[in-house]
């Protein structure tokens, strides 16, 4: 526990959005529920808030909210969790407004889909206590145009532009998605002109008081693209070390690396090899002689004998047939009308998909949900949901 800085420290977590760039995983779950080291991004956020001394958390949920509510129901959280629902996703400002009835004083607002260190939250809060002005965390980024680019002059934030084109980027500082605010923000959000969506950042620029930046260079992880999930999962596992639920069964002849995380009721069968950077969700079955490396495997997946899976994300309840090869390595991936070259990305397979025996996934392939790849078939590129490939 961190130092308790005020009698009751409240936080509002914005977790109502979808996160389309992580398709098809976000067809069935919101982006905050994507797992890193077997815990959803949102759980990392909640833990950081608790470590920073937060007593009460209001979760703003909307898109596929059942997934969030189900997750947090079954654990003992050292904090009061309350839900408010944003029925339509009309922007971060609109999301924050949904929490207004539960907020009587100053509070932390934070994005629910980015991993941050608790010390960042504490510093933002302390700065707010000192200045009594709105505070926003900013971080340095090599790719600022993916985020909200922040201009700072004389210790005050003078501009925030959401995902500007590369040529208009004037700063390497980006919005890290952690704020300390007071209830005056709510009326400002309401009065700020909305262009289709009510953004919190637009409202911040309309505040009477200056918005103070807290610059930060510690742990700050964002999953923008599918391959980020694999990389971040690997780095977090390096940091946490092996975590295997007590109900996991691992055959004595299997080889399991130190940096892996296995969820409840999962089974690793004879002679299987599970190498670094791999996470198994709940009730996953890894068959005999399977080789699994640097991959994120969601719940209820079955990987049959002698399959090789590398640098890959496998969606829930998917079946990988015997002898299947997902070779991994570098790929050029087309996503959102852009091509990303040299990304380490063996592929992304959606939920409830079936790969037959001896199938092949070329590096960088993205398969939708409910795809069937018949035995011996090869998949490449982008495959829509409910497709059968012969």
């Amino acid at each position: 526990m961190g130092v308790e800085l005020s009698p009751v420290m409240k936080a509002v977590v914005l977790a109502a959005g979808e996160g389309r760039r992580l398709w098809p995983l976000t067809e069935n779950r919101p982006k905050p529920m994507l797992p890193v080291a077997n815990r959803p991004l949102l759980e990392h956020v909640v833990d950081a808030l608790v470590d920073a001394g937060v007593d009460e958390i209001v979760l703003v949920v909307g898109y596929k909210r059942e997934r969030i509510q189900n997750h947090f129901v079954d654990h003992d959280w050292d904090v009061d969790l309350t839900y408010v629902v944003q029925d339509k996703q009309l922007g971060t400002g609109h999301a924050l407004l949904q929490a207004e009835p539960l907020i009587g004083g100053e509070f932390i607002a934070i994005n629910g889909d980015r991993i941050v260190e608790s010390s960042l939250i504490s510093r933002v809060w302390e700065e707010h206590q000192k200045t009594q002005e709105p505070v926003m965390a900013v971080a340095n980024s090599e790719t600022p145009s993916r985020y909200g680019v922040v201009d700072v002059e004389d210790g005050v934030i003078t501009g925030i532009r959401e995902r500007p084109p590369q040529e208009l980027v004037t700063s390497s500082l980006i919005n890290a998605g952690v704020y300390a605010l007071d209830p005056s923000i709510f009326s400002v959000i309401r009065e700020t002109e909305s262009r289709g969506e009510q953004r919190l950042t637009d409202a911040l620029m309309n505040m009477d008081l200056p918005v103070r930046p807290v610059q930060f260079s510690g742990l700050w992880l964002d999953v923008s693209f599918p391959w980020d999930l694999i990389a971040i999962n690997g780095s977090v596992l390096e940091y946490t070390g092996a975590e295997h639920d007590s109900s996991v069964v691992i055959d004595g002849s299997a080889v399991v690396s130190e940096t892996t995380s296995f969820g409840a009721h999962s089974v690793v069968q004879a002679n299987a090899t599970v190498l670094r950077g791999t996470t198994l969700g709940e009730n996953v079955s890894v068959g005999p002689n399977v080789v699994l490396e640097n991959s994120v495997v969601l719940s209820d997946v079955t990987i049959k004998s002698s399959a090789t899976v590398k640098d890959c994300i496998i969606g829930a309840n998917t079946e990988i047939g015997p002898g299947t090869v997902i070779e991994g390595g570098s790929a050029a991936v087309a996503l959102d009308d852009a091509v990303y070259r040299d990304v380490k990305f063996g592929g992304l397979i959606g939920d409830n998909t079936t790969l037959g025996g001896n199938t092949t996934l070329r590096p960088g392939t993205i398969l939708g949900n409910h795809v069937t790849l018949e035995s011996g078939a090869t998949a490449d590129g982008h495959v829509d949901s409910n497709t059968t490939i012969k």
Partner: protein
Amino acid sequence: MCGITGYVGGEDCHQIIHEGLKNLEYRGYDSAGIAINGPTLSVEKQQGEVSNLDLTTTTNGACGIGHTRWSTHGEPTDENAHPHTDCTNTIAVVHNGIIENYDDLKTDLLDSHVFESETDTEVVPHLLEEALHTQPSLLAAMQAVTHDLDGSYAIAATHVDEDGIVVARQDSPLIIGHGEDDHYLGSDVTAFADHTRDVTYLEDGDIAHLTQDAVHIYNDGERVSRPVETIEWDADAVEKAGYDHYMLKEIHGQPRALRQALSGRVDQLSGRVDLELSLDSETLKDVQKVEVVACGTSYHAGVYAKELLETHTDLDVSVTHASEYAFTTQNPGETLVLAITQSGETADTLSALREATGAGAHSIAITNTLGSTVTREVDDTVFIRAGPEIGVAATKTFVSQVATTVLLTTHLGRVRGTLDHQTTDELLGSLRDLPGAIQQVLDEEATFRDLAREHAESEAFFYIGRRYGYPVALESALKLKEISYDHAEGFPAGELKHGPLALVTPDTPVLAILTEGAASERTLNNVKEVDSRGAPTIGLTTNPDHARFLDHAIDLPECGILEPLVANVALQLFAYHVANEKDRAIDKPRNLAKSVTVE
């Protein structure tokens, strides 16, 4: 069948008892009341839910008892609400169960006592008042009075001149919670799980005196010691977690509940199932007959179990509503009675079980509740591990009960040599696929909400299925009638033409289970029968060819012989949304309570 709470200690007695009652409301909610002792006796009670109870005028004190009622004797009125008091207004009593000889006892008391209610319970405070003329304490009075009581009871009483609470248990659950500097009482642990997880389960015949510092337990006049157990309990599990109803939360909790039910019980390599039974293979080989006893939803799980056991073993299997059960078998040593009860306290089931075990039958219980009465009365218990279920309409416990009976069937089939490797793999494979298949149905909730909106105002609903589809038809119809109050019936599909077809009109949707394990091709003929009478037809199917015979085809993910169970989850969502459209009290349907501890 009601809920009891109690508290002795230095904290806010009011608040603790009131919270405890709220947590127990699923046991009954037609009236509620509390009595606080010290320095005077202050009783507040009324018809209606716990939240209606006005406690602003009652004084606070060092100990108290509370009650939430589900009426058996006497209508839900302010007078019939517990606690009941004696003529001198010094003793307050709450009671769960039925005093069977209350009529005789009351007749004897009427000369010298004034009764204010129609309940069986009210004899107890008056009997205690009488006994106190000769007995030195409330404890001694309770010991004397319980000799005269027939029936089932959990009783808690408090006397204005004495410290603490005196309780008695016979065939109704009563649990003591040990706090740091105080003691709690509850019909189950939900009453006080927020405060302590160190508990003592009282046994039949126990009478206990709870004070702030100590608990003394007696049985048959002798001081006895009962163990203090620490329960694993997640208090958050009894909150709604952002859902509008517990029932919806529990529907969505099914994939996880199932993974827990299966965890560690299946060795995938050998196909062996380990349920940690004490009944050894030899005994299980010698069994010739299985008699399943259960009530309500558990009975439907029993019908599923019968089909499973008869298909995969050579056992002769019967399934009987526990209240209709009679043990008539000639060879009790070759009979296994299988009692299925979510709460482990269902009076009808316990009574049937006792009849069979009393005659010498072997016994296994399938239950969700650690420490429950049934677990102490059987050779073996297989827990379904579904976690607490608060919604009165059972959802996740049905699915977990069936999954558990698949494990038991596999075990019996392997032991008896009637189940080959391939079929074992298929059964266990279906089980492993079940959580993922159910998740897919949950992800399509909007489909079922739309379907429910379209049909919510129908005159009646008929559910049909064959084989494993039959218990699911029964259970799905029960779900709808429990929470929406609509007329809904489940039939074996082939029975339709032998009578119920006369009820079918264009305003009575027919919902058909058309999956694997449900003889779907034959049921499809019955769908055509109702279609030609103009009834809207809704089919739950894994076969795309069925769609052209149906007004609505609901595609389900494949899951072998457990596909009907996947259909059940879809129909749970249908029932939920029909009831929600009508704004029903989904978690507390009228006239129903969760744990039925009266016969």
